[in-house]
């Protein structure tokens, strides 16, 4: 396998220094072909196994095949099952493997206040460096896909690492390794896009006119991509966002507001200093003192 340079950093949270970028890095991607997924949850098991994660409690049945019911600090990937009726009234069982999308423009990283708690490697993996995580939960607000989860055990936030540790040594992610149907493929983003093209062509030939690749440009593309048989409506796949963006509220807070707020406060202080230079202190004069005492004395006598 190619050297995916997973230790070179492209972006680092809350940091102004420019990371080294003279090396060309191959962009990687995981391609999840929803049409080939059989919902066996081998990927979930492999993820727990490789990352040494166990849910603390056995959950309860909530009327769906989703198990556990949601992503959590110990569940970094999750099969989400949707029973969908197409316009002709046919039932389709849509199964989507949910987890971090590894955005080209990561909202979590943008929101993070702790230097180096979230990094984006040159190969595209977005990784949480947990020792730097302060548990503020800002990444949760920054994420357009509702992925990071705050742990009550250690007040740190966790999510899929795209097995950055495996990728760094030339291995594919554990979920891709475990998938028995080849629904999860891993390689360069270029290769995965090409492979997705073949799959889409095949799906179209089988009557899925709207088959397509999910690589949303609103978040700078993603390093986890889906082949969807209904790419015209991603939201039917258990709420996959149709056109994900970093929330404008988060962008305002982490974008324009930072310099404007700092400049505004500095300006306020400078105005005070200039006022001091121009008008000077407002001193109590001896005649004020005399008149003031006069008022007091009149009352005393």
């Amino acid at each position, binding site marked *: 396998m190619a050297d995916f340079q997973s230790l070179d950093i492209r972006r680092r949270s809350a940091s102004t220094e420019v990371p080294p970028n003279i090396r060309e890095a191959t962009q990687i991607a995981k391609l999840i072909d929803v049409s080939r997924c059989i919902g066996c949850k081998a990927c979930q098991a492999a993820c727990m196994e490789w990352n040494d994660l166990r849910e603390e409690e056995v959950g309860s049945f909530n009327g769906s095949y989703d198990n556990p019911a949601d992503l959590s600090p110990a569940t970094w990937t999750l099969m989400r099952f949707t029973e969908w009726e197409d316009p002709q009234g046919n039932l389709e069982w849509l199964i989507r493997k949910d987890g971090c999308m590894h955005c080209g423009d990561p909202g979590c990283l943008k929101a993070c*206040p702790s230097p180096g708690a979230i990094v984006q490697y040159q190969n595209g993996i977005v990784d949480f460096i947990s020792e730097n995580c*302060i548990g503020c939960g800002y990444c949760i607000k920054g994420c357009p896909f509702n992925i990071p989860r705050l742990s009550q055990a250690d*007040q740190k936030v966790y999510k899929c690492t795209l097995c950055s540790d495996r990728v760094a040594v030339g291995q594919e992610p554990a979920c891709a390794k475990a998938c028995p149907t080849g629904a999860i493929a891993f390689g360069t983003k270029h290769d995965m896009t090409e492979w997705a093209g073949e799959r889409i062509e095949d799906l179209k030939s089988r009557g899925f006119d709207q088959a397509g690749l999910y690589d949303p440009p609103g978040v700078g593309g993603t390093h986890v991509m889906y082949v969807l048989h209904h790419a015209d409506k991603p939201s039917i796949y258990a709420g996959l966002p149709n056109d994900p963006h970093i929330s404008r509220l988060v962008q305002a807070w982490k974008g324009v*507001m930072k310099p404007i*707020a700092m400049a505004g*406060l500095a300006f306020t*202080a400078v105005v005070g200093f200039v006022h001091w230079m121009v008008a000077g202190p*407002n001193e109590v004069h001896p005649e004020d003192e005399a008149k*003031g005492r006069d*008022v007091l004395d009149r009352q005393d006598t």
Partner: protein
Amino acid sequence: MRQPPGTLARYTTAARINHWVTAACLILLALSGMALFHPSLFFLTALFGGGADTRAIHPWFGSVLLVSFALLFVRFVRHNLWERDDTRWMVAIRSVLANDEEHAPEVGRYNAGQKLVFWGMTVLILVLFASGLVIWDTYFFGATTIAQKRIAQLAHSLAAVAIIGVWIVHVYAALWVRGTVPAMTRGVVSAGWSWRHHRKWLRESAQRR
């Protein structure tokens, strides 16, 4: 308490302690909050034992501030009700800023600027506390949606910047108007200071003696 001759009691000991507890909280909140607001100020987390401890303690400072400020509010609210003269005083703000208060209406216990600081602090502290609860994820993560948290997060940071601005005005005014600081440290002001800045209050206080 015996007053030195020519001085007036402005703040009781309890009021002064109440004020400085609030002030300490506000400063600690500003330092820990700014640390998490701007990456260039993240180094301030070192004052609180690192990033995680800063994140953990910040809302507790806020909780103490809320209680402390509520007591200040009860103490001072009746002196801070807006009156017609306050509007006239604001109209004459230019001459006040030029250290000429003779052209502004006589002032009671608080002038219009002080009242605005009082109400600004009140409103902003309420906004900060309410929005702060929404983003206090350690305890209340499940209570609100992420969409609501995003609104709260922006509101919290905007209100925080505003209150630091109000605080700068408050501190500068106390330094600019000489003789003001002892009111809050020793609790007394001179007769001259009262004549110059709070003439109506001086007359009322003198009558009450």
